[in-house]
């Protein structure tokens, strides 16, 4: 099962109208607001974050306090971040899975 719906899971009830912040998810431009967590920013526009490691399920976070580890996403540079505890930053290039070149040999450390 994959998520096809291009609408948000979360609903903003208050604190709207802060400065907009642009970022991308899987190359698609999206917009959040200053002070949004990465999790909030993604799930205000999308239903899910990406596929779970195990089992036929999509992830959307679970505890929102940094304990369950369900909400990690990839970044274009091959690193990952825990979306419930990280604030959105302008230009973040987020991915729902690892970048294509992730398994290429690394440059030797200098």
């Amino acid at each position: 099962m994959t998520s096809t719906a291009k609408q948000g899971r979360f609903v903003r009830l208050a604190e709207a109208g802060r400065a907009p912040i642009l970022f991308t998810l899987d190359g698609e431009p999206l917009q959040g607001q200053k002070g949004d967590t990465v999790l909030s920013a993604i799930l205000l526009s999308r239903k899910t974050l990406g596929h779970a490691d195990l089992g036929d399920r999509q992830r959307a976070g679970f505890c929102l306090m940094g304990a369950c580890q369900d909400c990690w996403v990839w970044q274009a540079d091959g690193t990952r971040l825990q979306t419930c505890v990280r604030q959105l930053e302008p230009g973040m290039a987020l991915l729902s899975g690892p970048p294509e070149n992730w398994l290429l040999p690394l440059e030797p450390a200098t």
Partner: protein
Amino acid sequence: MTQVLIVGAGPAGIRAAQRLTEAGLKPMVVDAAARAGGQIYRRPPVGFTRPAQLLYGSEATKAMTLHSLFDKMVADGRLDYYPSSSVTALGNGMAQVVTPAGVRELRYGRLILATGATDRLAPVAGWQASGCYSLGAAQIALKSQGIALGQQIVLAGSGPLLTLLASQLLQSGAQVAAVLDTAPLRQQLRGAAMMARARPLVFARGVQMRAALGRRYHAGIKLTQIEADGDGPLAIHWQDSKGKARQTPCDMIGLGWHLRADLHLADLAGAQFEWSTTFAQWLPVSDDMGRVGEGLYLAGDGLSILGADGAEIAGRLAATACLLDLGHAVTDPEADLNKLNRMRRFAKGVATAFPWPTQMVRKLLDDTVLCRCENVTAGELRETLDWSGPDANRAKSLGRVGMGRCQGRYCQLSAAEVIAAKAAVAPDEVGRLRLQPPARPVPICAFHPAATIPHEGKP
């Protein structure tokens, strides 16, 4: 001067820091959040505008007092504060701390752990679907982000947070379709008398909040199944107290059965634990002041599930014990000890009124996912027991329940219950999962030499 390390800057950690700084010490405070306050008094990011009254309701004054107290200690340079940081390992007077700037090693002489609690979860068929969250998650999103986790919300489980959160969501304009409490009214009345005697005002406030939920609230229900597709929940199926099958359409489900003390760092620091039948979980063994070992003190929900008011008192007491052990003259802790006893009586009432759903967990259907991280079902755990015997650690090694990224935080108690049911023993007899560092998953790059800051703090 002995260095004291406080882990956690919620009500307990803040009060502990206050007591130490008043005695002239300069403690180190490590906290996972970007801003101090803890979970219950969690602060929104800078620039958010809702007033404290809206965020914390009747507790607004307490929240603001703690926030400004901590901010002032930081501004006056009376403590070394490490926000957005996690202690991942402890030993030999050294804490490994992952900070936004890299890994630090902090040396300490004495340690006060105020690491709090997480939601206590029990599995429900289908709860692995995206769109199922802990009750705490829904409260965090509302308080710190002004966000509801779905359009049509169902809250299920038991405990004070169930009613409080439903009330907060409704006041904020969220759509709450149903509040499903597994505790029967008869059971709740047993705890009510204890709660009312210990803290009449708090009890009255809870009753009032509950009444305002009206027909959304159902006591004594049984959860049957969460129906979901790839995008999330479609409905929750349940039985009302008369046994009638019901279903409620929804796209978000919040689950939680009160709280579970987070024991990870306490275990790494050498605390001993015993099973609490009242709270149906393992809790650290301590004296009245929160001493659990040589130079080791615990306070707050990570010691005993007393809530925020109890945590403030316990934080002061732990710091007082620390000061006494350092040879400082301190004021008589008698008054705080008496207050804490009242909190304990209230907490026992809460635990009695809103119990862990023992029978529901013991009777989980074989195809229900028990461990969300490793996608292990109740049936797979039961099969594992043929090889592991009724031992939680062996069952984890062979069947992977509790071996995933949450490190057993959300499945350990349910797994113990399922194992105990099959072996016809009490849940404590199957043993407590051995906890190991790191206390949180850490990206390997954090340990690259370029990201490591040589140790700080004085021996």
